[in-house]
């Protein structure tokens, strides 16, 4: 019954998406100043659709929580013995469930948009909702026609197949929903951009409507990528935090586009410049979300993320991708010329710096995109290649370094036009910090070039992030400016972590007999014992490692090699010892014939700063949203108050109680 309710809700939501699309399109045909009689259904349709889609997802969640084995999806991906949290997170740990989550978030954000957004002209809003409905419809069709999550089995299964053990982790409970909400938030930015383009309403008022959506999506993407990176770091047991894996790139590309879009929207809102560029980035950002979904969900990649290897589904998503992106770029090409050029600015100005930042981000995006698609491309010609860090690291650094330098200076520049001479002190300080940082580090030894540059830049960026506050009263700095400062500082923190990990990491690999000790950095690692243990749905070999720092009291680390039985698979559970200045990372391997155990230990100085930085960046984004919304609410309240006062004065004047002020002769 639960499944049938969910399925019915999904079909109804699809029907409402059609209504939303048609009704929204009618808004475009209404004469200016009037409302088309058929256009009033778009908003309610979006809201009810959101409720239905969320209901459908809740039904699937319920089916997974109760392990309803008559559902094909539950039987294929769950197991009655699994802990409840992993039963729930298993809902989106598979193809159909994750697509339902995607559609649910899409519908929910459409509903929120139509409930709370009343500033836009009705025609623009109608067009926006029509586009949003069109996008949603494609995904409803995809779900209902080719990946129905509520399909019943003819005979209920006796027991489920279980969930890929790599995915049985708390990281999975958080990482995909955050990332999806980010992807889908960009769909709202896309719909708004298309709506504004179709109705020629690309102006600062529109940018202010779009900005919270872009910021929100960007914050969620930042958090999702940070969580995903940490998950890969401790769960895969390889000691790395970024592998340039196509699936990681699929989440990085929308982030790069969203970062560019966020800065360009800021220019449009504040200065009415970069109109077409903002629209194009809006289209690009959502295209990258779609491409990410295609890469991950179509099965063209083999990875822990590619649940389905089903050519029909891949073709379906590719079709949707072509339809939306092709359609959007066609409309863009047809309409972009009609958008008047915005305000102009000099090359040396805050706008100029933001343009450079945008161009550099787009160039990095191109580098990552080409590197990700290249293996797929050559495979068509039967040449098999893999593209890894030797390509991605230097190629993206060529554009990232100038971008970071501009990021240090940009916030100090004035809008419209500025003179570099005004910033002599700041420029000298930043240059001195970069050069001094690099010189100081290279004094201590030979390090690879990129981490070295990273350390110098991180020092300069960390200081430069706070320079915009210089000479201002801290109490009166707007919240949104604090957001920018903290986000830029977060980038510096993260860069510092990456550079330290790259330059100073130490690794020790040895076969150790129980009782034996290995030394790494300041730590003495002793293998106390190796014991077999059992968990709820796995068994494991667990090593007891006693770690002594400089001969101090021992801390016990317990890395495990786990074996799951449903589905049968082995994973390596790393053990981490976190200090403020780094992490000790330990993994246990196989037993050699002579009874010794392989132990692999890393000391990674300041590696945690990578993720602290990510969290700071997201926090900056949250502050920016909070600041903007507060100013917005204040402005709205003030205008309501003003209107009321004017009405009062008018009412008093007409009743004759107080003689209306007469202009003097």
């Amino acid at each position, binding site marked *: 019954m639960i499944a049938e309710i969910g399925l019915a809700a999904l079909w109804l939501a699809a029907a409402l998406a059609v209504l939303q699309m048609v009704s929204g399109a009618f808004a475009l045909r209404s004469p200016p100043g009037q409302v088309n009689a058929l256009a009033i259904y778009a908003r309610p349709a979006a809201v009810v659709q959101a409720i239905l889609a969320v209901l459908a997802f809740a039904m699937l969640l319920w089916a997974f929580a109760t392990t309803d084995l008559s559902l094909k999806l539950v039987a294929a991906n769950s197991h009655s013995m699994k802990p409840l949290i992993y039963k729930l997170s298993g809902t989106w740990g598979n193809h159909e469930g994750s697509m339902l989550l995607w559609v649910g978030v899409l519908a929910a954000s459409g509903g929120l948009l139509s409930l709370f957004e009343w500033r836009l002209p009705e025609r623009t809003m109608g067009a926006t909702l029509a586009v949003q409905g069109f996008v949603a419809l494609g995904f409803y069709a995809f779900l209902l026609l080719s990946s129905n999550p509520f399909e019943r089995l003819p005979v209920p299964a006796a027991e489920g197949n279980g969930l890929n053990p790599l995915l049985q982790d708390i990281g999975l409970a958080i990482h995909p929903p955050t990332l999806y909400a980010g992807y889908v938030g960009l769909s709202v930015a896309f719909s708004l951009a298309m709506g504004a383009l179709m109705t020629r309403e690309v102006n600062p008022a529109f940018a202010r409507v779009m900005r919270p959506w872009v910021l929100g999506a960007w914050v969620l993407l930042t958090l999702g990528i940070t969580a995903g990176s940490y998950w890969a770091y401790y769960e895969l047991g390889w000691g790395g935090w970024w592998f340039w894996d196509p699936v990681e790139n699929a989440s990085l590309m929308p982030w790069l586009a969203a970062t560019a879009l966020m800065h360009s929207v800021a220019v449009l809102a504040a200065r009415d410049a970069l109109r077409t560029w903002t629209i194009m980035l809006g289209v690009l950002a959502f295209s990258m979300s779609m491409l990410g979904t295609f890469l991950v969900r179509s099965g063209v990649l083999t990875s822990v993320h590619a649940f389905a290897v089903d050519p029909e589904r891949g073709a379906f998503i590719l079709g949707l991708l072509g339809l939306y992106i092709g359609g959007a770029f066609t409309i863009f090409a047809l309409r972009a010329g009609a958008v008047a050029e915005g305000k102009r600015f000099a090359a040396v100005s805050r706008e100029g710096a933001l343009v450079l930042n945008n161009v550099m981000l787009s160039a990095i995006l191109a580098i990552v995109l080409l590197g990700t698609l290249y293996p797929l491309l050559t495979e068509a010609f039967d040449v098999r290649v893999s*593209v890894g860090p030797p390509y991605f690291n230097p190629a993206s650094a060529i554009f990232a370094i100038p971008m970071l330098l501009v990021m240090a200076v940009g916030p100090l520049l004035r809008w419209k036009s500025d003179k570099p001479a005004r910033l002599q002190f700041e420029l000298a300080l930043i240059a001195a910090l970069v050069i001094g940082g690099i010189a100081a580090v290279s004094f201590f030894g030979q390090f690879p070039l990129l981490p070295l540059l990273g350390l110098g830049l991180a020092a300069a960026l960390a200081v430069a992030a706070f320079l915009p506050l210089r000479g201002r009263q801290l109490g009166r700095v707007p919240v949104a400016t604090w957001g920018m400062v903290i986000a830029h500082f977060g980038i510096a923190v993260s860069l510092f972590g990456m550079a330290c990990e790259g330059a100073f990491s130490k690794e020790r690999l040895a076969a150790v007999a129980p009782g034996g000790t290995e030394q790494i950095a300041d730590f003495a690692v002793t293998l106390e014992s190796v014991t077999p243990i059992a968990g709820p749905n796995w068994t494991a070999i667990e090593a007891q490692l006693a770690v002594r720092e400089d001969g101090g009291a021992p801390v016990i680390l317990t890395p495990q090699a786990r074996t799951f039985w449903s589905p049968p698979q082995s994973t390596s559970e790393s053990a981490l010892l976190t200090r403020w200045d780094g992490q000790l990372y330990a*993994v246990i391997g196989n037993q050699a014939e002579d009874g010794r155990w392989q132990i692999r230990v890393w000391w990674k100085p300041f590696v945690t700063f990578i993720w602290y930085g990510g969290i700071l960046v997201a926090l900056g984004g949250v502050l920016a949203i909070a600041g903007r919304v507060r100013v917005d609410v204040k402005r709205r309240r003030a205008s309501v108050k003003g209107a009321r006062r004017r009405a009062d004065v008018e009412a008093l004047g007409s009743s004759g109680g107080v003689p209306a002020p007469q202009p003097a002769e």
Partner: protein
Amino acid sequence: MKAKHQRLILVIIALIAIVGAGLLAAWGLRNQANYFYLPEQMVSAPPAVGQAVRLGGMVQKGSITTAADGVTVNFMVTGNTADAVPVRYSGILPDLFVEGSGVVAEGSLGPDGVFKATNLLAKHDENYVPRELEGMGTEQAAKMAADTTVGLK
């Protein structure tokens, strides 16, 4: 600057940067992409010493030996012919790395003709096959699946 010109200049700058990125990517990809070799290809036309490549094939039966330090492993990788390439790897072996299983070794060929692997990708679970091994021929794939699937009927 004349009206209309600013947008043109912006577009040109953006185009130059994107095209530059594209060219750089093309050049980088030609140099840095790791090409995939089967053992017979590596024997007949070996890559340059030190060039990062991937070698994929089957771990020859009875060829795995562990060095005295307990962490360095030597084994032979075979493909569709009798050619075999010796591989040396220091590190923790993938969980399902056994004799007769499929493996992809990332690394480079040393001057002594031994392939030094920096990373080994073996079968991860019963559903995952390294992408490069998919085209190895049905007979071998079936054999590999039978040999390396642990715990299934």
